[in-house]
């Protein structure tokens, strides 16, 4: 009996135990299950952002102008950090930062802080070797600009978060940046990834971008402008080179420049792409457009005689000067010798609305269309605002304002036989159709081209732009700069704009130097820069020079050592 009672009691206890276990099982597995599961998931499952690599920016030949490469960044998850004061000191030493600063960051209440971004791989390895919980490294992308200061203004730069802040980096940010992805990962108690549960959003890598810029020409133009700015103590300088048949911007240069790899120490003024964003009074390089409008309307012919009043004329009580005194001369001579009075008289012959329409057709008052951030449309007042004196000054390029890019585009209209094209910074393929607009007859264009060719003759103001072997067309400009209360004494914008070769222009170039020391004439300071850029550019584009009367005959071609074909031995016999 006693044993039976004991057995029963044991049975009862066991039953009670099992019941207890069952009850707890039901409570955990059924009643509290949703809450506990959510908690477990939040501890073990994490969304991880996968950064997208930014597309490279290449020049037209495929040479890199901006490249992204992965680099580690050190981060902390402050709530999870467990480190002794000695460990914090060691970490601070590895990161090369103050221990106090580090402690402040670790005391932050946010779940994620960067301790140091974009560090050398060695530093990241040292931090990982410490093995502190809550401290880790993530992959980010750092942007490098191999061309440095040479193409800084065109390419611009991206911020540390990989978004474009200036230049092409900003203009084409959508194409370049791609889309970051997201992964759902399971982590163990130490925060290490166990497995990827699924990819919530796949990474889309940024697209590479091919620019119209030719790195070689960009470099040559930059060197030429930089040297000229230095030699003439100019405040700044710029150059734009275009392909007149496609509207492609081949080079766009600003001096002074900055190094986009080390932004600290460069000022906002240095970073401004003045050739695209600053509207300046162009001065005499604007005269051909005034004359083209008059020719197109049939108001003058290239041989029409204009009285240049021996260098002084009054319009509505204001005086207009010429630096080169002349009497009665042809329209050709007005351009060749750059007479303000002649240009003013030609402008006064015209109707406000007609002249305005023609100038607009050349792209003045319109955006050049490169999509460059902050690209200016210049200033072209509406014709009903023009007084008689305004029209006279517009005739020689004052009272209006345009960027170097706009002037280049207007010269491209002349070079392209009277068809205006939108400009582009992207490389266009041969089969891409570009919609141009005819704004000038071919006959007028040819007349203007001949006049501009005379500017570069020994009697013209732009003889320093002449190139052996090529016929060059161009125009000098020396514009006095406006300031508060009138034009400023001794402050000039010296410029030269033109194209070559005249018969079938391959390149258009505009060079401007801001406030050079005397002699400040465009024909003296800007024309040689134009000449140098053109000489280099025409060679790069394989435009052969025409042999002149003094050109020596070509040398006997060197024979290839391996050449054993019959033509070669025959050549030997003849000589």
């Amino acid at each position, binding site marked *: 009996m006693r044993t039976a009672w004991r057995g029963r009691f044991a049975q009862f206890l066991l039953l009670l135990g099992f019941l207890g276990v069952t009850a707890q099982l039901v409570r955990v597995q059924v009643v509290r299950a949703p809450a506990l599961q959510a908690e477990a998931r939040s501890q073990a499952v994490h969304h991880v952002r996968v950064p997208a690599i930014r597309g490279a920016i290449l020049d037209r030949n495929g040479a890199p102008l901006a490249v*992204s490469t992965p680099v580690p960044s050190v981060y902390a998850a402050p709530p999870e950090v467990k480190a002794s004061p000695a460990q914090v000191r060691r970490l601070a030493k590895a990161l090369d930062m103050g221990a106090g600063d580090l402690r402040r960051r670790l005391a932050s209440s946010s779940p994620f802080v960067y301790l140091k971004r974009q560090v050398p791989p060695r530093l990241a390895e040292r931090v990982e070797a410490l093995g502190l919980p809550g401290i880790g490294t993530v992959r980010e992308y750092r942007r490098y600009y191999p061309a440095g200061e040479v193409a800084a203004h065109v390419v611009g730069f991206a911020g540390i978060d990989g978004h474009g802040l200036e230049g092409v980096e900003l203009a084409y940010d959508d194409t370049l940046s791609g889309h970051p992805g997201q992964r759902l990962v399971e982590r163990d108690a130490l925060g290490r990834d166990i497995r990827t549960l699924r990819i919530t959003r796949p990474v889309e890598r940024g697209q590479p971008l091919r620019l119209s810029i030719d790195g070689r020409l960009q470099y040559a133009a930059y060197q030429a402008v930089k040297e000229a700015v230095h030699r003439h103590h100019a405040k700044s300088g710029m150059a734009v080179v275009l392909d007149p048949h496609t509207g492609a911007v081949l080079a766009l240069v600003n001096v002074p420049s900055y190094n986009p790899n080390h932004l600290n120490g460069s000022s906002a003024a240095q970073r401004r792409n003045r050739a695209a964003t600053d509207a300046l009074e162009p001065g005499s390089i604007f005269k051909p457009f005034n004359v083209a409008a008059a020719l197109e309307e049939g108001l003058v012919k290239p041989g029409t005689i204009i009285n240049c009043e021996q260098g002084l004329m009054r319009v509505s009580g204001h005086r207009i000067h010429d630096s080169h005194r002349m009497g009665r001369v042809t329209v050709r001579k007005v351009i060749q010798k750059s007479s303000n009075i002649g240009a003013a008289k030609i402008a006064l012959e015209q109707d406000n609305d007609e002249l305005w329409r023609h100038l607009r057709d050349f792209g003045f008052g319109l955006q050049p269309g490169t999509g460059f951030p902050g690209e200016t449309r210049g200033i072209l007042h509406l014709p009903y605002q023009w007084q008689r004196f305004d029209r006279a000054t517009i005739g020689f390029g004052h009272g209006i304002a345009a960027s170097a890019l706009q002037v280049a585009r207007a010269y491209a209209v002349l070079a392209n036989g009277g068809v205006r094209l939108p400009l582009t910074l992207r490389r266009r393929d041969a089969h891409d159709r570009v919609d141009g607009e005819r704004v000038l007859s071919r006959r007028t264009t040819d007349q203007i081209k001949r006049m501009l060719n005379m500017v570069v003759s020994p009697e013209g103001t732009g003889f320093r732009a002449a190139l052996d072997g090529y016929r060059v067309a161009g125009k000098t400009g020396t514009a006095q700069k406006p300031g508060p209360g009138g034009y400023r004494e001794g402050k000039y914008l010296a410029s030269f704009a033109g194209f070559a070769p005249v018969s079938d222009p391959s390149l258009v170039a505009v060079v401007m130097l801001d406030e050079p020391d005397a002699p400040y004439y465009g024909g003296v300071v800007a024309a040689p820069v134009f000449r140098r850029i053109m000489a280099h550019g025409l060679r790069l584009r394989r435009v052969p020079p025409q042999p002149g009367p003094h050109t020596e005959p070509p040398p006997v071609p060197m024979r290839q050592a391996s050449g054993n074909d019959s033509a070669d031995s025959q050549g030997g016999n003849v000589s």
Partner: protein
Amino acid sequence: MRALAAAALLLALALASGLSLVWAREQARQADLGIRDQRDRLQRLDTEWGRLQLERAALAARPRVERLARERFDMHTPDSGEIWDFRP
């Protein structure tokens, strides 16, 4: 007897199912490790590609090429009198 056999069969099936689950998990883990290896490899290759591009850019930098051409190979920019066009 029949019931016992059925129970044994079910037990065996349950065991097999459980084991196959373990096996499948292991496979998934292995596959995931493989993916992670490939991702690491992609990252290494990205890094190397970036480094090589930068190296190429540094080697082909215009000032360097110009200096080498002038100094080491004694080249100069041809004047227009030195350029002849042999194209037909």
